[in-house]
């Protein structure tokens, strides 16, 4: 998967949790909490969804690394390549 694929997957999971968001309107650097209005429970659900999809355990300390689509796609690509 490329970073682009990871971004698409990330946004797909994001929309499932926050279906009030329009996929086309989500910017690469939009912060999921500050800009996209997710609350902390949403973030936990997103982490669980990414875990289910990729089998990747995202520790609490790494939540900041999935805070925007750009950060998250880079993070997922790096973690899953390892």
């Amino acid at each position: 998967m490329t970073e682009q694929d990871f971004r698409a997957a990330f946004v797909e999971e994001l929309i499932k949790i926050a279906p009030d968001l329009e996929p086309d309107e989500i910017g690469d650097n939009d912060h999921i909490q500050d800009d996209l209005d997710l609350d902390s429970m949403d973030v936990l659900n997103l982490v669980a969804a990414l875990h289910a999809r990729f089998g990747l355990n995202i520790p609490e300390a790494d939540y900041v690394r999935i805070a925007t689509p750009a950060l998250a796609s880079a993070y997922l690509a790096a973690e899953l390549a390892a």
Partner: protein
Amino acid sequence: MPSTIRKESGRTRSASLPDPDKTRKSFTWKDAERLLDSLPGGGLNIAFEAVDRHVRAGYGGQTAIRWLGKGDAREEITYADLAARTSRFANLLMAHGLERGDSVFALMGRVPDLYVAALGTLKAGLVFTPLFSAFGPEPIRTRMEIGAAKVLVTTEALYRRKIAAWRDEIATLKLVLIVGEAAPEGCVVLGPAMAAASPEFEVAQTQPEDRALIHFTSGTTGKPKGAVHVHEAVVYHAISGRYALELVPGRVYWCTADPGWVTGTSYGIISPLVNRVTMIVDEAEFDLERWYETIKREKVEVWYSAPTAIRMMMRAGAEAAAPYDFSSLRFLASVGEPLNPEAVVWSNKVFGMPFHDNWWQTETGGIMIANLAAEDVHPGSMGKPMPGITAGILKRTESGVEELDTGQIGELALRPGWPSMMRTYLHEQARYEKCFVGGWYLTGDLAMRDPGGRFWFVGRADDLIKTSGHLVGPFEVESALIEHEAVAEAGVIGVPDETAGEVIKAYVTLTPGFEPCEELERAIRGHTRKTLGPAVAPREIVFRNTLPKTRSGKIMRRLLKARELGLPEGDISTLESDET
């Protein structure tokens, strides 16, 4: 059952209340009033007690608020700064022709202007209502209508997204203040208006029974209730902060609650400032490393947080906390929903002291039952009644109420008369009076008292949902659901969640022409998130052909919940048509 956490005698002696049982016996409200000065010339005003009197006493140079912005921004606001800024805000309100008793609403994140607006409003003798900035347009509008908002203080982004579309329909609204240096048409920019206003203002001569704050809370049916609090509440804010949170002048204190909820106002603005602490205000949402770093860097001494956040820390494990120096901490407290025993034990291990759970609600205005610094902690218990507070466990009977014995589960009730008790529900005196039976205020919570006099939370006596510490009324959520064209009927319940306590789940039936599918589930959920905001919207929606209803057509939420939890269905004699 985890074992009792014993307090060492050193810690007991240094507590604000070294012998709580003795004080419980001897306490009078005069003891609490001694923590305050009244207004020069008579009267009582929350903002004067919180800010101006400290400046008069020579503490103007002490930091009142240490504000940490998202990212690395920070601002130190001294008591003298806060006095001047709140005076400017009060003058600004006067300049716009507002009068004593008028209603000022705030809708914004935790930025300095929120604190200035709250205290400036009180200083001017107007009535302050904070709203949670993550609310969607619908809860905001309903609350502004009920509260007859005259002024709204908000940000440009929130105004455009949530207010602008219906602003003109709030007939009472005279003034919209926008934080910052630019504002949309029809609004006033706060920055320049503040700069132009005088930093001197004579505090309004409010009396103890004058209205000060309106906090909205959810009901099981009907609209949200506006609990009215008066300036006399400050007597209780002062003493309860001192006794239950160890707020002693000069200490560094961090309350993580948002002022949009009552904790964030009573113990995130008023009580700490009245007790002249230095308060940390963090604009950002929960972020584990940021929080641990904040405690270490700012040398936080007293930390008041909530079970959801504490459970998130637990999930990250003790290892995540290990690199940080927590030696500045001296007291931890938690509120919002019951703190599970495991979290109490965990915190004792990781921070070297337990989180002290306490219990209260919007209507009580302040902490009623608490685990105090000098007392042993029985993990899972909410502690004992505060000095001045009498609590009981009651059973409702045909003729009124009867008090239950130790060990029996019943409704938690309080003897009215403490200073921060709500004075009415706005425009709903009858609904207010229904809370009182046989000389007791009935809280709607089920609890049990043990032989040691400690109280243990059992559950809600009604259908209200406690999610991430926020009380949500199912009716408000159901109303938003049925606004969606596909939804015919909706029943909303809370289902247990290990982090949030409960999460909101909706059962809906569809109008003809709509078929259940994942896409529709998301469309409906998206709609509710837009109208209600993420904290109040359901996390899960399931489709049903019919919902269980009584003969009078009421959806039986209790039955939905019993089935969801696999519990006995109880008395179903009123069930007319069942769920399919």
